[in-house]
């Protein structure tokens, strides 16, 4: 299962376009939403994984409009509703001068304190690994185009909490992360140039040792 955000290898979005250098924000809305996000992240009301999951779960026809401040705002609003800070109808009421009452003043905990012990590293640089075709309904950080592909580990990147579990509020699960390199022709077929390569950071949960043929 996948959402539209998992874009690698799709087509139909037209040629790339660029922007001039030197402008951090193009519109007032873009600046406002960035400010809000920074404040809510700093205050503990929003978190990266929950926010990403919320944006990924937007209806595809909203996401595909690619209005980035809108998508981020809607993801942020969803998070604030989950945390009990904002309820449906609050913004309309506030536009008419009524401030919501009885809301938390500090963010409620997202999940239980503490962490699972770190999972030991099962792979090393040079290992050939296969990306598992596991079925996941929720947030994860595995590009679809790499499912089932075989690549080689080129770097160990230490431990990170598994984003799938963070987004599902299932606790902190520190896992080894590896940089894995793939040959573009293995992934895309003969249209790719022979020497071209792809590289991605992959959580240990997403890979298994490749069986030598």
């Amino acid at each position, binding site marked *: 299962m996948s959402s539209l*955000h*998992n*874009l*690698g*290898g799709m*087509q*139909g*979005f037209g*040629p*790339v*376009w*660029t*922007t*001039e*250098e*030197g*402008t*951090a*924000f*193009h519109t007032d*809305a873009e*600046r406002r*939403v*960035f*400010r*809000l996000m*920074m*404040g*809510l992240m700093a205050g503990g009301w929003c978190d990266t994984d929950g926010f990403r999951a919320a944006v990924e779960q937007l209806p595809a026809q909203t996401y*595909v*409009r*690619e*209005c980035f*401040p*809108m998508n981020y*705002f809607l993801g*942020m*609003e969803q998070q604030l509703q989950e945390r009990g800070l904002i309820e449906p109808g609050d*913004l309309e009421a*506030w*536009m008419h001068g009524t*401030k*919501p009452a009885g*809301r938390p*003043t500090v963010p409620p905990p997202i999940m239980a304190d503490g962490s699972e012990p770190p999972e030991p590293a099962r792979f090393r640089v040079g290992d050939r690994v296969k990306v598992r075709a596991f079925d996941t309904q929720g947030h994860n950080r*595995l*590009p679809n*185009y790499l499912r089932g592909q075989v690549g080689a580990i080129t770097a160990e990147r230490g431990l*990170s909490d598994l984003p799938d579990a963070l987004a599902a509020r299932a606790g902190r699960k520190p896992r080894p*992360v590896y940089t894995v*390199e793939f040959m573009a022709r293995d*992934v895309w077929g003969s*249209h790719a*140039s022979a*020497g*071209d*390569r792809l*590289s*991605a*950071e992959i959580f240990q949960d997403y890979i298994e040792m490749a069986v030598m043929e």
Partner: protein
Amino acid sequence: MSAEHEHGHDHHDGHSHAEWHTTPPPEIELRIKAMESLLVEMGVIDPAMLDGIVDFYERQVGPRNGARIVARAWADPEFKARLLADPQGAVAELGMPGISGDHVVMVENTPATHNMIVCTLCSCYPWQTLGLPPVWFKSAAYRSRAVSHPRDVLREFGVELPPETAIKVWDSTADTRYMILPMRPAGTDHLTEDQLAGLVTRDSMIGAGLPSASAP
């Protein structure tokens, strides 16, 4: 979102693209403003602190910081060696805002290999050295085809690589943030470090472009 569904902007006009992708429908714009004023009223966010954060990203970090790093690496081989081995430590030498937090890795372009960065899942980007990601870096057009058709994408950016140069695309899917160290253009031996920094474009540090060939 009704009338705004017309995505009818000119594909060669970066300005209108940027406006389109950062202008919400009016009803969303109103909700953004209402959310902001409500959260200030509730004491959830502090406008003065937020102004400071915005100022930091508008004025203190950005691609000119990355350009200074690249120019120093071009001018000073020992700095370059330190930069490739320990980006955090080397960047701290330049007295720019630190790059703690996400792990930054420098990737060097060579005649044999051209490197490109993408985040196919969202918009992960080396904020600490290049500032906030450009709008096109978040776009579906770039994220979808940078991995599958990198040569076509580079051509659309106006870059034609020799066929013998292999391309390596780095998809930023976890906590590592990549920045490209582009190749120093030929014929620039006489330039000062400041002049070299002027050749380093933002896109060249993403791998979507090359440095300018001559001083601006």
